[in-house]
């Protein structure tokens, strides 16, 4: 499909994004481990009491008896390291399984399905581009909420631990820090694999590994930086940029999907693949519904334009379908984002307020009242003495 022989831009972005999310979550978990061990008692009442007995009873080999022999800090450090290893182990297993699944899927895909594919090339490409673009839509929009991940995960974790108080507490409780990252990474990994499978269709197999590996590395690096340095606002800016890039790719994919379906219909009409005829001149495209056609700049033959095609969905022969679908995708993004912000209560639509909005406003007003009261009560002794004497 594109002429990128060694590096597929869309695969890079997909793998990057998935890795990033997985890394963020894992890093959040790692951060929580510290909080757990250093006794963030308010947040994890049962958790802390849960882990202290465990460390005492189940780690005979470590022979850490609380008391004179070891300092409390060393104990804690060892605990932190152990719990962190659980998180890493979970993440690692998840990664491995998703890779294995991915490799198997792609191997089967490229051998069996490429036969099917070559017979109805444009149709398959179109279907997968469509699926990929829809998933990117969801992904891109939810990515904007990633900055709330830390708080969200803390609460989830707390809840998960507090519930395991009654039954099977030791087993599940012990492994929760392993299972959660594993599931998370597995989910992200499978998402990435399906995406890559869809987008990879039609791209030379050589372009996938390098792009995927680079995406993986970049995701790890960026995730690490987010974990270490990110304040909420830096994270927000970073996420905005990433989301915009992802949505650009998604819109391009959606447009390409519609374009591929139309190309497929035209090929069926002609009975032969129109690319085979060669050239970009008259006769190489369907004049009905064509919006622009340039006798150059064909992403299927020129490498630089292929990159434009991968990132922005550029084509030298646009149809009404491909143009309208591109616009429609962004319109949906706008609509959904506006709706989400409305639902969260952070904005009003034509004077209407959502339930959450009402809640926030009332809470905000209450806080403001309380703040005023406090200020008033602090300064009240003075004011009472200033009341005019009788």
């Amino acid at each position: 499909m594109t002429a990128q022989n060694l590096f597929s831009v869309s695969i890079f972005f997909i793998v990057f994004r998935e890795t990033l999310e997985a890394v963020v979550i894992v890093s959040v978990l790692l951060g929580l481990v510290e909080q757990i061990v250093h006794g963030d008692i308010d947040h994890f009442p049962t958790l802390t009491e849960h882990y202290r007995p465990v460390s005492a009873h189940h780690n005979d080999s470590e022979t850490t008896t609380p008391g004179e022999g070891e300092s409390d800090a060393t104990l804690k450090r060892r605990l932190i390291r152990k719990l962190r290893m659980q998180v890493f182990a979970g993440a690692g297993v998840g990664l491995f399984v998703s890779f294995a699944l991915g490799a198997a899927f792609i191997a089967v895909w490229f051998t069996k399905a490429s036969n099917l594919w070559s017979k109805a090339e444009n149709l398959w490409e179109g279907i997968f581009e469509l699926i990929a673009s829809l998933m990117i839509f969801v992904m891109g929009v939810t990515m904007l909420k990633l900055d709330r991940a830390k708080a969200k995960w803390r609460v989830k974790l707390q809840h998960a631990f507090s519930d395991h108080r009654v039954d099977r507490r030791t087993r599940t409780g012990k492994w929760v820090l392993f299972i959660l990252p594993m599931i998370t990474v597995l989910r992200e990994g499978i998402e990435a694999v399906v995406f890559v499978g869809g987008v990879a269709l039609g791209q030379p197999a050589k372009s996938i590994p390098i792009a995927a590996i680079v995406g993986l590395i970049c995701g790890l690096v960026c995730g690490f930086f987010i974990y270490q340095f990110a304040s909420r606002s830096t994270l927000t800016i970073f996420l905005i940029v990433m989301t915009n890039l992802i949505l650009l790719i998604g819109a391009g994919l959606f447009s390409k999907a519609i374009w591929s379906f139309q190309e497929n219909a035209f090929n069926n009409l002609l009975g032969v693949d129109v690319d085979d005829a060669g050239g970009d001149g008259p006769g190489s495209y369907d004049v009905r519904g064509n919006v622009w056609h340039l006798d150059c700049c064909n992403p299927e033959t020129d490498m630089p334009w292929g990159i434009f095609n991968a990132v922005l969905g550029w084509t030298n022969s646009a149809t009404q379908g491909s143009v309208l679908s591109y616009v429609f995708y962004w319109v949906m993004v706008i609509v959904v984002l506006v709706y989400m912000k409305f639902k969260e209560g952070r904005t009003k639509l034509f004077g209407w307020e959502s339930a959450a909005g009402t809640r926030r406003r009332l809470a905000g007003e209450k806080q403001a009242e309380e703040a005023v009261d406090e200020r008033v009560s602090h300064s009240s002794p003075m004011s009472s003495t200033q009341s005019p004497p009788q």
Partner: protein
Amino acid sequence: MWCRQLLPLLALLSPALAGVQELWWNVTYVQNANPDGLFERRVIGVNGTWPPPPIEVSTNDSLLVHVTNNIDQLATLHHHGMYFNSTSWMDGAMGVSQCGIPPGQTFDYVVPINTSGQVGTYWAHGHSNGIYVDGLRAPLLLHSPNETYGADYDAEFTISMSDWYHQEQPALSKAFINIANPGGAEPIPNSALVYFSQNGSYLPPIPGSSPSPVTSAVGFNENATLPFEPGKTYRLRIINLGAFAGFYFWIDGHDMRIIEADGTDIQEQPVDMLSVSVAQRYSVLVTARNDTSSNWAIHANMDTTMFDKVPSNINPNVTSSITYSTSSNLTILSPVSSYTTTNDSALVPIDIEPAIPPTNTIQLAFNFQTMNDGTNHAYINDVVYNPPVVPAIMSALSLGENATSQVAYGPYSFVINYGDVIDLVVQNGDTGKHPFHLHGYKMQIMNRATQYNSSDPSLNPPLIEGQANPMRRDTVAITGGGSVTLRFVANNPGAWIFHCHVEWHLESGLAVQFITAPLLIQEQAQGRVPAFMFEQCSAIGVPTSGNAAGHASATDLSGLPLGPWFQELGWLAKGIWAMAGCVLTTVIGILTVVWYSAMGGTISEEEIEEQVLQRIEAKKRKGKFFGLLKKKT
């Protein structure tokens, strides 16, 4: 009524001793014809039989053909190669010389052979909407009592060759000029036909063969044979009556000497193989062998280089035979290693006509292109030929003084003066070989180039003036990328079309027309133009006067069918607006993302925790939906 039938007779009888050969041709459909033995189909025949009978006329006589249309579409009959001097309304080309004979009506074609000075091998075929492809075609032979080579042969046969389709021409045409065919791939013939005739009737099939009943009187392909007697010399008239494919023709075990091409007698030219493009004719002398121990194969192979593809289930090569003795076996020599193209420029006419210096040179550059409606069309000098509303001859007759205005006939027209010597430099921008035919004249082949835009004189030689006796014929093949210079003296007032004789190309617009001496046409038409010509136009609702669009003006061509046009690529207005729209929505989308994330307050961590807890409570209330995945949330 009597007057209408008598008038043409009277016209012809003026050379007192000449006879008139009168034919009544009812053009009819013939069902279930299966000449190639592969497929039964409906064909267009004459008087209920197919193929239409060969027409053989003495050069002392005239020919009068009453053509009655008994099919359900318009029909005409064009006597290919006949001059029709000053009477071009008899030429039979729809859109140029007549409107087409409506179903049920009759057109009397007066062919003044005895005053034309013409002799030799010609043919007659339909010339309206491609009906000749469905079978309306037959040899037309002009026999002189004093043939140039009369003493050199003992008997003659006529060999008709053509490509053959199993589908009817209108369906093929619709599939050809179609948005699903942007490359302009011509319909591929399903087979080829070769059949023989002598003395006005077709030769029967070989005894013992069992041909299809409808055409069982005629031998086709391997069932066709020429009976040769040892020691005799035969004249074989070879005609390509097809729609698309050229033929390579040769006879195993026998030599050929060309003595005539397109009705021009020439000095004997020995050849091993003939290449005959659509509508071309040759006469060759073949001397029979002295022994009857073997029969010999006659080969007629279609030139498949212009076929879009050659399906494996068609046989483009026909093998007929010469029979010396019915008890002998047929000798078929091993296939030839290569085909040879006949160099007709090198032929020398017997009657000497030197080349006169030209007064006008008209360049006609043609090619094919996918047009703005997605269909593939041909164009000459960037104009696609579409038949005008009013046939050109009627415009010439009715426009008065304005008849000399070239514009009035449509952008594909040229008005030339009587006595002009015209050079047509026809340049082939396509890769295929195209046989071009000019009605009403024979053309002198002055020059040929293999690559018309080359500066190498071996590929693009300069024209040599003062040629003493250049070859002349009415159908000239132009090879891919090449050109040919054709010269003729405009001494025949009338409306004459010049077109590629591949039927598909004519339909897609590869034609121009020449109006010679329009004012002379008007003068000489007095009392000679038949009234039924105009009546037939009115019967189908076509105006009979005015310019090409039917208006009595030299310049107002509104309503003239034209086009389709070249595609305009690049950034047009609609493309620019579309791109702007895309960019605009993208920008708004990006701004929305920013607005969502960075503006309007953020949700604090406490709020997030509250929301998550609420969601968990809600899920618990709903119950264990995914019993497997959620342990006990």
